[in-house]
């Protein structure tokens, strides 16, 4: 029986079973192919969408505000990324973030804020979606906050601006507000140039968060640009130190110093007192933030006398070796009196400048048409913007009218009846120093020498420069502005400040000049506003500061001191002038 059964089990093909099996396998396979084809060819969008949802991300990169540096690459303003701590009160409520108050205590401690105020800020507005808790938090603190893991507390990147120069260049550079927008000075003028916009990019990220594919740029960003100023931080620092010392010594209300490179018209230093610390903004006072070197105008007093002489020489009204009688030390013009401190008798043009004689210069001024003086003043840049292009610049006032009384013509010649900024005064002397070529003033470092404009002939400019040498030598009004090794062509100025209805008891002490005379390199103007006490003469107040800044700056720029032979040469010229 068993044997029989075994024999019966010899395989016999049952065809229908095979066909069914093969048929099923084929059907299964075909359906797989069909499904694959369907997904791939007919309706691929849904899965693509699902995939994209898991891998596509939009990233944005933060752009820091551009750097501001001086001409030697020393930084004057640097942005550093920091973070803002903000809260989403709604999420904090929904996730019951207030249950663990220890975390809030820790948050308040690290932010140095009272914990009650902090919690109330978030708790009292459960519907709000955004509130700043603290801005400009340094990254170390931000990491700590991240570790606290409080629901509804987030960090947002922003940047903070540091000014390594501090108060030295505070008014010139200006400051930015908390949102990184320039609101003062260069930060304001060149805001668009310095600001970049972040770019947004669509990227594909892999499972472990690595970017594997860049797909498209959603928003094209713009890189911020750096700014290189013409300022030389060494000279800037020196000028500020001397100006601050002078301002304190004479208890002056304010003061400004401008240093201009004679050869290119670049501003090498521009400082003002009183100043402020741009890195700590709790106690900002608007009057400290003004860049007085360009915003404040003063009557320039005797500092403009050399340009009257220049105008007179140019027009031929006087000759370089003319003598002018100033006896008896005063003169009457149209019922008003112009006087000198004492009777100087017959004076050469050089002596008029050396002794700063009002009578002498008035006579020179009255010997030529008024348009000649006004024209020279204007060609020298008075009453016009200097081209420095900074926010708040003042052009000064210089009247242009038909009718002038003789007395007005005289006062115009010794610096009253019109106003100028310290920058304009320095620019005038720079023009004189460059042989009468006026270069536009620039606060940015120039790649090549700009094109200048000849405004007075170089012969006249040199004549006037030589006359001015005597001012800082024995017998001049500003011996304290004398520098050994570098002969100076400068001029003092002391002007009374105008008040309503006339002139008051306050003075402005000025000194402006160029050095070294034989090969002018720097032009400096020092303006000390309202010195208190008995000393208020430009030569005594502003002169010493001028000398210190000039000699220090020339040394820094490696300008060669004068040799003995050249010194004798020059001495003989100024001796002749006397």
């Amino acid at each position, binding site marked *: 029986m068993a044997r029989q059964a075994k024999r019966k089990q010899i395989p016999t093909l049952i065809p229908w079973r095979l066909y069914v099996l093969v048929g099923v396998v084929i059907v299964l396979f075909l359906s797989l192919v069909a499904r694959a084809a369907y997904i791939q060819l007919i309706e691929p969008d849904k899965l693509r969408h699902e995939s994209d949802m898991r891998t596509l991300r939009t990233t944005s990169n933060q752009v*820091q505000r551009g750097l501001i540096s001086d001409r030697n690459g020393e*930084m004057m303003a640097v942005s*550093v990324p920091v973070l803002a701590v903000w809260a989403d009160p709604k999420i904090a409520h929904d996730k019951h973030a207030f249950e663990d108050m220890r975390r809030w205590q820790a948050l308040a401690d690290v932010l140095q804020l009272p914990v009650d105020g902090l919690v109330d800020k978030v708790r009292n507005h459960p519907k709000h979606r955004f509130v700043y808790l603290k801005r400009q938090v340094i990254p170390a603190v931000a990491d700590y906050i991240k570790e606290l893991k409080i629901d509804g507390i987030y960090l947002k990147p922003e940047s903070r601006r540091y000014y390594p120069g501090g108060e030295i260049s505070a008014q010139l550079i200006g400051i930015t507000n908390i949102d990184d927008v320039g609101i003062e000075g260069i930060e304001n003028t060149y805001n668009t140039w310095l600001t970049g916009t972040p770019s947004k990019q669509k990227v594909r990220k892999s499972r472990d968060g*690595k970017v*594997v594919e860049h797909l498209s740029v959603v928003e094209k960003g713009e890189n911020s640009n750096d700014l290189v100023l013409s300022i030389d931080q060494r000279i800037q620092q*020196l000028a500020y130190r001397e100006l601050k010392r002078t301002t304190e010594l004479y208890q002056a209300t304010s003061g400004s110093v401008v240093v201009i490179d004679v050869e290119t018209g670049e501003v090498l230093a521009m400082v003002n007192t009183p100043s402020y610390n741009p890195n700590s903004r709790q106690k900002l006072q608007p009057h400290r933030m003004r860049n007085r070197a360009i915003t404040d105008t003063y009557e320039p007093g005797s500092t403009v006398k050399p340009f009257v002489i220049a105008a007179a020489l140019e027009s031929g009204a006087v000759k370089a070796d003319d003598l002018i009688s100033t006896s008896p030390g005063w003169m009457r013009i149209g019922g008003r009196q112009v006087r000198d401190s004492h009777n100087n008798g017959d004076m050469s043009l050089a002596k008029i400048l050396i002794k700063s004689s009002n009578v002498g210069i008035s006579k020179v001024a009255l010997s030529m048409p008024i348009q000649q003086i006004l024209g020279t003043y204007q060609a020298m840049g008075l009453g016009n913007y200097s081209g420095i292009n900074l926010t708040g610049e003042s052009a000064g006032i210089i009247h242009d009218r038909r009718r002038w009384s003789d007395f007005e013509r005289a006062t115009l010649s010794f610096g009253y009846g019109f106003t100028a900024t310290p920058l304009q005064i320095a620019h005038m002397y720079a023009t004189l120093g460059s042989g009468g070529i006026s270069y536009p003033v620039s606060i940015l470092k120039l790649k090549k020498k700009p094109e200048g404009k000849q405004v007075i002939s170089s012969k006249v400019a040199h004549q006037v420069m030589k006359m001015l040498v005597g001012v800082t030598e024995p017998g001049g009004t500003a011996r304290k502005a004398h520098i050994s*090794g570098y002969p100076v062509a400068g001029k003092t100025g002391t002007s009374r400040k105008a008040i309503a209805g006339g002139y008051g008891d306050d003075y402005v002490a000025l000194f402006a000049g160029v050095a070294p005379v034989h090969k002018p390199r720097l032009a400096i103007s020092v303006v000390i506003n309202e010195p208190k006490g008995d000393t208020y003469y430009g030569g005594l107040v502003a002169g010493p500061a001028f000398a210190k800044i000039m000699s220090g700056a020339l*040394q820094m720029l490696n300008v060669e001191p004068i040799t003995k032979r050249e010194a004798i040469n020059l001495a003989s010229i100024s001796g002749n002038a006397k």
Partner: protein
Amino acid sequence: MLLAILVLFNAIAVVLTADKTRKLTSKWDVLQQSQDRYDIEWRNLLLEEQSLSEHSRVTRIATKQLDMVRPMPKEEIIIRTK
């Protein structure tokens, strides 16, 4: 048949290239991130350098600690190299 084989090879090449691209992209991204990090570090170092090399500080150290003086113009000796 030949075409089918070519298609296959082509498909494999596409896959390999895509993979390579992704690896390079991710490397580039890592490099860019470290660039950002170095940039931040550089900015902080800049600030540190500025505060250390501040002129008044250098002057103070030079005059007080090292007993240096600035020469007067007439004490200067000029050496010409030509």
